[in-house]
Structure formats: structure tokens, C-alpha cells
């Protein structure tokens, strides 16, 4: 088993944190994982990319070569990476941030606002992607999220990661097909 995930957006969206949590949770679930990142010199606003490779076997080349999952939280990210996906792979975009045809769209930002704050859109997305991958038990993911966020925001993040999972499960059962 090997899965390659690429998350792109802009600095400040928590793209890198989402990749870190996904990688750490995969390791806690018993897989090998490498998380890499690429960003500009700006702390906010520049293009940001976080990649995670999860495998049952040792990982040599650490970056994504054939993305199984591409998530775009910015138009620029989608325009650059939205077509660079393996056969049978999935491209997901945040429907309020990216205009795209023929890909999966999900309301990460809207769902984040519903659970409390737009800032947790990355955690909603993480819950969604992990549910899609079906590698990491949700409880383990939630535990890893809580270990990586500022204290005092546990409840917000718990709601966010659950909202993301539920978004995926809802889409899969056809309630919110895109």
C-alpha cells in the first residue's frame, strides 16, 4: 500500500499543519509516512504546498510523484496541480475558494464556519481526506489533531475534524454529491 497526498493553498491556511497531522496519524496507525513542504518566504499569502506519502514499506523518494489525492484550497494551487493526479486519483477543491470543472468539490470553509471559525477549514479538510483514505481510525486522527493544536481550541478542532469526516461520508452516500 502506498498513498501520495498533495495539499496546496496559500500561506496561513494551515496547509502544512494538516499534512503534519496526517503524516503523524499515519505513523501512529502503524504506517511509514513522510511529510514534506514547500512555501515561499512570506508567512502569509504566498503559495504553500504540503505533501504526505504513506506506505506499508520504507519510503525512499520523499515527495509526491503520482498523487492519489490532490486537495486545492486556492485557485492558484488548483491551476498548478489540479491535473497532476494518478489514474483513479481524486482531486478535491474547496468549493468557496476554487472554480473547477469535473472534480470533487467540498464546502470546507463553509463547514468550518458552521462549526465555529473559518480558520479550522484545514482541519475539516483533514477529516475529509482521512475518511477518503480509509487508513487511519477516526479516533486516532482526532487524538493526533488535538496533540497538534493550541490549547483552548480542542472543542473547535474536534468539531472540525468530525465535520470533515461527515462531509465525506455524506458525499459518498449521495447526500451532497458534487
Amino acid at each position: 500500500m502506498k498513498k501520495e497526498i498533495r495539499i496546496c493553498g496559500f500561506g496561513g491556511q494551515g496547509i502544512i499543519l494538516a499534512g503534519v497531522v496526517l503524516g503523524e496519524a499515519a505513523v501512529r496507525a502503524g504506517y511509514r509516512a513522510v511529510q514534506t513542504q514547500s512555501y515561499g518566504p512570506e508567512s502569509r499569502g504566498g503559495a504553500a504546498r504540503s505533501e504526505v506519502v504513506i506506505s506499508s514499506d520504507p519510503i525512499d523518494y520523499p515527495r509526491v510523484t503520482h498523487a492519489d489525492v490532490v486537495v486545492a484550497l486556492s485557485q492558484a494551487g488548483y491551476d498548478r496541480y489540479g491535473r497532476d493526479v494518478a489514474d483513479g486519483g481524486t482531486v478535491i477543491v474547496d468549493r468557496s475558494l476554487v472554480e473547477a470543472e469535473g472534480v470533487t468539490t467540498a464546502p470546507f470553509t463553509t463547514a468550518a464556519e458552521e462549526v465555529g471559525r473559518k480558520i479550522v477549514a484545514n482541519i475539516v479538510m483533514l477529516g475529509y481526506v482521512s475518511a477518503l483514505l480509509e487508513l487511519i481510525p477516526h479516533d486516532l486522527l482526532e487524538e493526533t489533531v488535538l496533540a497538534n493544536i493550541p490549547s483552548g481550541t480542542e472543542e473547535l478542532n474536534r468539531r472540525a475534524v468530525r465535520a470533515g469526516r461527515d462531509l465525506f461520508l455524506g458525499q459518498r452516500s449521495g447526500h451532497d454529491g458534487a
Partner: protein
Amino acid sequence: MARDLDYGRVMAVLGPREQFAQGDVACAYGAILGGCDFFAGYPITPATEVAETMAALLPRLGCAVMQMEDEIASLSAVIGAAWAGARALTATSGPGFSLMQEGIGYACMTETPCVIIDVQRSGPSTGQPTEPAQGDMLQARWGTHGDHEVIALAPASVQECLDLTRLAFDLAEEYRNPVLVMTDGEVGHMREKIVLPGEDEVELRSRSEPTSEPAAYVPFRAGHGSVPEMARFGSGFHTYVTGLTHDERGLPATDNADEHSRLVTRLVAKIRDHEELLTRVELDEQEGASLGIVSYGISARSAAGAVRLARAEGIKVRHLRLVSVFPFPEAAVRRFAEGLERVVVPELNLGQICHVVRESLDGGARVERVSRIGGEMIRPEEIVKALLEGGERV
């Protein structure tokens, strides 16, 4: 100073033995597990996390961390601390590494044990701060002026960031020389699972202390393996430390050709004569191969991917990963290349270690480079293509 690591106390600060950690953080962990008790530095992307981690952890062990005004001062502080008995570290990236060349030369000349981590980024000058590169490799070897030798290690994984930084302290102490940990922005910012060593794995090797009485102590008289015994400042031994050519007493002898030749020849020999002992390589052998890859650092991960792809297509290839890069493991590279027709060297620069490989093989296998600069890693397919069709010659 012979000393033991207080393992329980250190682990209480470092946390669980298994972690999903970043390369820079792993370097800091490796330093602390290597007995590091002083850090001085100046922040710079992509090395800042080393300083941040040291600043967060080292004071909890009762040790000092200083943010200096620049990188020259950082290495100077490290050198001073080392003479006071510390196992001292600084960490930087290209622009800071350039400034530190002065201090590296001083540390070589004064035989000061110290560890310098260079998390390489794209240069020259300030270049691309957030992008990885391997463009400082020959600067590590020849950046400071005059004849000298350095020890340089190149981690290819987050685990190795920890292991090799830890090793660097032992080597610095043993050889009384600067040891350079040549990591890069990719492995420095990458996260992987690491396993911290157990209590029975953390024995420290320390510098040799004077065995004579203070009155009979000759500070720069070569002892075991050409390395003099080192008296800590304040321990009652007279020591004079200067970057000028000095005699065995440490006193300037700048107009004495014999003294200069004796000193600098010994400084070079104490490292070069131990090439085999300092060599750390990882060989992935394949019978009947005529193609080979010599790699180091993060590009070794691309090379390992290339080996996997090539062998899946029935292409026979041998791979040598240099874990230690300097002193250059010439004998190991020669043995590796026996029977090979082509050796390619993937690097995130326009050709640096490939020159040293070529010089080592001296007319043997054809040595070509696979280069990538600008921030992306070399893809395994590019190395396979170079193996089959040839890489770039110069």
C-alpha cells in the same frame, strides 16, 4: 572531560522515544543526546528550527543558549565555550555558513572541537531562503583559507539528522576539529518517524585531558593519533590559543617555516590519516552491474528510488551512499567503482561532489552529474535516464 549523559534527565526534556519529527528538530535532539551543553546561533531559514528547539530545551537542562548578533559571533561564542569545556553547537544556512568560514579556519588551526550544522538552501548569496540545495558542499571542504581538513556528514533522513549530529560531537571531541553536519532545507523541514536511542546507546566520547602535571603540560604537543591533549580554561593549565602559526606551547612562531610545516601537516594528517576510520558509507551492491550511483544527503533518496525503478526494469545498478563526505571516502569510492563503466552523481547543485568522485577514480569509470537547482528534488526517473543515456559531463 570525561562525562556521562544524564539519560533520564535528557529524555524527560526530549519526550517520547518515538516521534514524528522534523529534521531540524531531530538535529537538536541529536545534539542534546550527543552531550551538547552550549548553543549559540543567529536565526536563518531553513535552520531556525534548530535554534528554536535548542532554545526551548537546553535551558531546561541547565545549559546556556545565546542568540548572537550574527553568524561570525555565533561560531566565535561556540569556540570560546568549547575551550571552557563545552560540547558546543551552532546551526545556520548558506549566507551564515559563508560568514562562519573565518571561525571554521580558526577552529581548525586552534584544534577546537565544535559542531556546525548547515541546513543548505539555494544560493549564492541570499538566493532562495525556503528552497533546499546542496550547493555548500565544496565550501564545507574549502571555504576557509589555507590547508586544512574538516569532517563532514550528510544526513539523508530525519533519523540520520539525529544520529549524525550525535556522532558529530564525538568526532569533534576525538579529533579536536570542527565537524560539519551538511543537511539541507528538504530534510531539515521534512517530517518522519524517529526513534531516540536507548540508555545503553548514548555513551559519550570526550576530548583527551592532560595526563601530565600543569607545569609539564605542552598544550599543542601531538598525542594519540596526532591529537593533542586539551586542557579546559580555568583548570589550572597554562594554554595560549592563537590562529597564528604556533609552536607546541601554543606561542606564535610566524616566521618559522619548519614550525608552520610541522603544525599544518599534522592538522591535515590527523584527519586524512584516519580516512578509513572516518568513512561511513552504505553500499547497495548488485552483481554484474556496470552502472553506478554515488549519492549523499537528501539526493540519496532520489538515488534509492532510481535503483528501485531501474532494477524493476532489469537494469543492473550499484549504489553507494556517502554518509560521511569529508574526509572524502576515496578508498571506498574506488572499491565501489571497480568494474563500473559509468557512475552518476545526483546533487542539488551544478556539480560539486561529482568532481571529487571523478578525481578519486582518476580515469576509471566515466563520472557524470545529474543536477537540479531551484528547489525541486531530483526525480528518480531522471537518474535512471542518466544511467542509460549519460548525465552531464561537466
